[in-house]
């Protein structure tokens, strides 16, 4: 079912608000992973503010969809979504990077409500997401819901998992061997409730990802590992939500899913885009923040 133009526009507006929340965090210490956060922000918006099962009032809800931010240095995007959803008040954005703040420099499960995985060491998130997906299947096998005592009736569970497991990967991260260990694992155990999203912004810290260590042909690699693959423009909201829907519809096909989202590092802020900024600091950072604020600052 095609989504209305109104919903897409609404999500685009929300994405701009999330960008704005990110700027607030970047201002705290004039520092942050601006490039990767701007490239993933539309994907995070589509997931958190539209697609996943998530209750801001009950973030530990056992049937919530799990989101593993494997490129956890871009946790500013998730924090922005949590603020937008009301899990945290807007003032918390100003505590980013601070001692004992729930908004730590890398996503941390015990510091932040609504975070499923403590990431930061690249390459591990897909294994965790695969483990969560495996656990969903195992729970259904070992503890099938009794008649009448479950949130989701049995007949629905035939067509949908109790929860889905999403994993947001960076493109540079795909150079880690463990990603492909996890890809084999997910394929072996037919984890069709697992959806990986590669934020393919083409740049990592040392330069263009495919110069640093070529990951191409990326689509063929995932396919060779037995995954369903869908390529999209990661800044086109309609394409993002359609791809997520497609992955839901394909549940039951025994294949894990990979959405390769072509994105732009530092998207939407010209000086960050031209610098392919990874970690921004000082004036470079603030110049971008001023430009971004002028562009997105008045979005309500």
């Amino acid at each position, binding site marked *: 079912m095609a989504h209305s133009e109104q919903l897409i526009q609404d999500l685009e507006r929300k994405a701009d608000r999330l960008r704005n929340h990110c700027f607030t965090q970047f201002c705290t210490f004039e520092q942050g992973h601006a490039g990767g956060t701007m490239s993933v922000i539309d994907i995070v918006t589509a997931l958190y503010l539209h697609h996943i099962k998530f209750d801001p009032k009950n973030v530990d809800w056992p049937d919530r969809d799990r989101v593993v931010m494997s490129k956890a240095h871009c946790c500013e995007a998730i924090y922005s979504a949590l603020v937008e959803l009301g899990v945290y008040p807007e003032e918390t954005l100003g505590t980013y990077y601070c001692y004992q703040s729930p908004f730590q420099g890398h996503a*941390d*499960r*015990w510091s932040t409500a609504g975070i*499923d*995985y*403590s*990431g*930061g*060491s690249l*390459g*591990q998130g897909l*294994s*965790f*997401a*695969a*483990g*969560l997906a*495996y*656990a*969903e299947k*195992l*729970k259904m*096998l*070992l503890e099938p819901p009794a008649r009448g005592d479950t949130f989701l009736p049995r007949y629905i569970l035939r067509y949908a998992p109790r929860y889905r497991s999403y994993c947001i990967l960076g493109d540079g991260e795909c150079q880690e*061997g*463990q990603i492909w*260990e*996890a890809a*084999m*694992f997910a394929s072996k155990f037919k984890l069709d409730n697992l959806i990986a999203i590669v934020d393919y912004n083409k740049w990592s810290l040392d330069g263009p990802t495919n110069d640093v260590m070529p990951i191409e042909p990326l689509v063929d690699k995932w396919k060779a590992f037995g995954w369903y693959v869908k390529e999209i423009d990661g800044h086109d909201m309609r394409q993002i939500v359609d791809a997520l829907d497609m992955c839901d519809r394909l549940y039951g096909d025994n294949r894990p899913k990979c959405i390769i989202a072509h994105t732009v590092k530092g998207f939407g802020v010209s000086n960050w885009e031209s610098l392919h900024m990874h970690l921004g600091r000082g004036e470079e950072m603030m110049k971008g923040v001023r430009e971004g604020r002028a562009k997105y600052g008045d979005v309500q």
Partner: protein
Amino acid sequence: MATFNKHIQIGGPVAFGKGIEKGMIAAAKANPKILAVLEDMGFPGIEWWTTTVPERMVECGISEQNGAVVAAALASEGFVPCINSFLFADIGRAFNQVRQSVCVDRFNVKFIGREGAWGEVGISHNTIEGLGCSRVLPNLVILNPADAVEAEKATVAMMQYIGPVLLRQESSPNPQTIFTDDYPFDIGKAYPVKEGTDATIIATGYMLTEAVRAVELFEKIGLDVAVLNMCTLKPLDEEAIIRAAEVTGAIVTAENASIIGGLGEGVAAVLAENLPTPMVRVGVEDEFSQSGLITSEGDELKAHFGFAAEDLVVAVQDCIAKKERLQARS
């Protein structure tokens, strides 16, 4: 005839694996949440698992980094996964995974890691650095049982404990049976095997067998040496270590591991801060192990590393000499 403490009865040699297998099956029968996470290295009681609860086995193949993180995720969903492999693989190869994905969030993941200086398999597999590299990890409990009875009890205790635990299964000759079946095992508690006044041997793992054998030798030369079994290497039983130093004033540590980062260093740190005491550390000096055989002619690696009861006697005599020099000075 030496008098050992309660719950000590020296018997014939039994493999560590036998105890771990018994403990694992008992624990897994009692708790249906326990899962076997395999890394192509078998699992304690594998026949029972494959015939009785195959659905509770997760075979990850030779991909220890993935295995550790998958186990963390399973633990986050309420399961109690246990990984079994060589320690250099399930902890060493996956060190950062264990650190970041297991210990940071204190997930309830259990590791059984085979390690020690002995074996025919050579330098790659006879590893000795596992204690040093794992003792630095916050939240990780480390157990290193001394015989099959303790291995069984430690396995059960590990599976009941909530939080990450590493159980080190030593590569060594089979240890003698030392503990009785009603031996009260407690995580974090050292057990006094024998009392004494001249010196204390604090032993862990297989080296307790050599320490117990040394007791007879001490009697012959008129020394009264205490033996303390340190199964839990983290957290160390500081109280027991300090008490031993108070009573005997000379401490010899014995471990089938590198003396860097293991039991010896742990004990030394406790004593340096609380009650500086003369010490000798028996273990692998700063070197790698290699292949070695145990034949009727002898045990090549035991001789190479100086791990025999006779070597412990020399170490204890050294330590007592240090103590006496210190007493003479003051």
